[in-house]
């Protein structure tokens, strides 16, 4: 039995017992090793920059999912807690007398405290109820704080933000954090620490009651818990970790701006978390990886990245509301039955053409876009490492043909896949 990290452990049974705690630690040890060797695999600075960005977003997304996934509170303004934590950190970095004696790795703690302080203030009135009231208050607060960021220049620095220099802190065992790689390890450490703490939090009485209140606030009241306070504490803890993410942002980018507070950032984290899957602890992590790649890497390839991202979200929400994590966890029963192997071939037969179909459709979209918007005379376009004339007939024929054939193959393979899926999820010798 694998120790999957879920927020609603549906089959924990024996795992609680002493011996199995070893299994519980294994994923974390693997994650730590993975984080350590990652820069060795991808040594370039830009890769590390993207990994830093991912790690920061992961902490933020996990904090957000404490609220949405575990506490059932939908927030449209969670960026402000990360932002305020980050602003607190850049201001600290600018306080020479203090920062000179503060080793940089401890800074995110203060970011967390900053985010937490704001969460305590806002949470004191916003967590009285969940649902739409909470959501709309969060939207209003988010909008207000974002608007304040350009008005209150003293703290938020107006449009150009507040910048600082991380290397002015006290060297930490001789490390001055001059290089991206050093910063990477700092962030990776905090990512791991925060993730472990957040995971453990979901295993505490508070964490369990957060789930209980999410599912049934009234019942929780009759178990001795005030659902309001349970929500409040979840909210504050989530604010703390969002603030930690803000502190990491301050360290990595050495600047915070209005962008860290605005509704776009808040909306993005909602999408990231949902894309990954709110029902599972590791969902936001997957969501972050996918979204960052779409945003940073795909946007280098095509202007239409936003269009594809939008399609991806719609497809996810319509067909896989459990997000990517939900999609992965769908395979748990098959794996437990030991029949997951039977899915591999049908998957290949179905998804390889499906992959080409997606590429084909994307190619057609890109070609239409090119014909419509490229400058006159610029008739050649590059796609998938090919350069051709978008106004000639042949590329269109090729693209349409590839797409059509791929779609047909996918359709033909689908029934077999469905049958294989049913088979893999049926225990041997009897119906479920």
């Amino acid at each position: 039995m694998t120790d999957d990290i879920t927020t609603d452990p549906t089959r924990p049974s024996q795992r609680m017992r002493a011996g199995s705690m070893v299994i519980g630690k294994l994923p974390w040890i693997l994650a730590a090793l993975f984080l350590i060797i990652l820069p060795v695999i991808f040594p370039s600075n830009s890769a590390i920059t993207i990994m830093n960005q991912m790690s920061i977003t992961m902490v933020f997304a996990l904090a957000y999912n404490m609220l949405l996934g575990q506490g059932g509170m939908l927030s449209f303004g969670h960026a402000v807690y990360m932002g305020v934590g980050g602003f607190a950190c850049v201001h600290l970095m600018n306080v020479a007398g203090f920062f000179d004696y503060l080793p940089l790795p401890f800074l995110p703690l203060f970011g967390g405290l900053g985010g937490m302080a704001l969460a305590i203030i806002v949470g004191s009135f916003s967590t009285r109820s969940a649902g739409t009231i909470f959501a709309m208050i969060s939207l209003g607060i988010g909008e207000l704080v974002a608007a304040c960021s350009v008005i209150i220049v003293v703290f938020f620095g107006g449009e150009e933000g507040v910048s600082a220099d991380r290397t002015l802190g006290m060297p930490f065992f001789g490390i001055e954090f001059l290089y991206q790689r050093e910063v990477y390890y700092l962030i990776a450490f905090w990512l791991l620490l925060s993730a472990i703490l957040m995971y453990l939090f979901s295993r505490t009485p508070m964490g369990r009651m957060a789930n209980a209140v999410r599912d049934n606030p009234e019942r929780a009241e009759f178990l001795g818990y005030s659902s309001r306070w349970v929500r409040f504490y979840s909210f504050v803890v989530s604010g703390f970790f969002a603030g930690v993410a803000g502190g990491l942002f301050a360290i990595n980018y050495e600047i915070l701006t209005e962008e860290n507070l605005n509704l776009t950032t808040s909306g993005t984290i909602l999408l990231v978390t949902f894309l990954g899957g709110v029902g599972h602890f590791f969902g936001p992590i997957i969501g972050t990886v996918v979204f960052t790649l779409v945003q940073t890497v795909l946007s280098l390839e095509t202007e239409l990245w936003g269009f594809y991202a939008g399609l991806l979200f719609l497809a996810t929400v319509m067909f896989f509301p459990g997000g990517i994590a939900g999609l992965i966890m769908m395979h748990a029963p098959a794996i437990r039955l030991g029949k997951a192997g039977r899915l591999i071939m049908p998957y290949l037969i179905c998804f390889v053409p499906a992959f080409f179909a997606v590429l084909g459709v994307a190619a057609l979209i890109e070609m239409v876009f090119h014909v419509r918007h490229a400058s006159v005379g610029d008739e050649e376009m590059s796609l998938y490492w090919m350069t051709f004339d978008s106004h000639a007939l042949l590329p269109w024929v090729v693209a349409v043909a590839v797409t059509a054939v791929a779609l047909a193959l996918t359709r033909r393979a689908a029934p077999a896949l469905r049958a294989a899926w049913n088979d893999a999820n049926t225990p041997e010798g009897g119906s479920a």
Partner: protein
Amino acid sequence: MELIFVNLIDGLVTGLLLFMLSAGLTLIFSMMGVLNFAHASFYMLGAYFGYQISLYTGFWGGLVLAPIIVGVAGAGVERYGLRRVHQYGHVPELIFTFGLALLIEEIVQFIWGKNQVSYGIPEVLQFTAFSIAGNSIPAYKVFMIFISVAIFLGLLYVLTRTRIGMIIQAALSYPKTVEALGHNVPLVFMGVFGAGTALAGVAGVIAGPVLGTFPGMAFVLGSIIFVTIVIGGLGSLWGALIASLLIGWITTFAKSYNLEMADLLTALGFEKPEPIWDSAWRDLWTVTSPQIADILPYMLMVLILIFRPRGLFGKRDV
């Protein structure tokens, strides 16, 4: 004094425009529980369709056809998108509309490009209706007021005098019981969604020429219409109307009259720190009402949610 009258008219135009959006949204929100984040995107689609059609038929063709197309598109979204997502709960529904808003913006850019399109006021309405103390009131604004009022009266008639209106009203107050009465709820939902988005489309067609038709126009309006219906109270068309006008007038007057925070603080007995530019409170002291005019509705909403969660005219909690 004359300026007050002018401001009242300006605020009325803004408020009625908001109302055309919030009326549809409040119907959708209170019946289906869907926070339709894409509502303003349908408004944008209305403006763009209106523009495209006006190239062939002139403005008036757009005014008639564009809302119909938008309404059909809206009904299609409900039928093939939302209805599927509905079974998963409200959060996925919301994310769906959120993603839809992103997608519609991208599609608009794909088709019409990223620049503002030159969607203009029709020739016949390009004159000054009347002037008050040197402030001209364009005929187009008068036209906007008439259209909005006509739509409001039409809605009122449908909701209070027709059978379908009765069903909708019942669904507003008791969302769960209508199905029990044997009505085809999915069809009602689709119809309401289509009608609501069509209303947004009308707003887009008539607002596009004055407020500009560009891919960011939905985002500018985006969340303010939620604020309107929350302040007005769920399920209340009157609430939506009053809240829209209230927001229209509050923002207009806050922009027109330079109320300064410094005056307020002095009146409260605080002393202005000198020199002001060295003070940590300088930003607070120098705030003026035009600066914060457009965030006042959000403040109002937060206060209302804290002290009266059902909104001004709502019958049930948000």
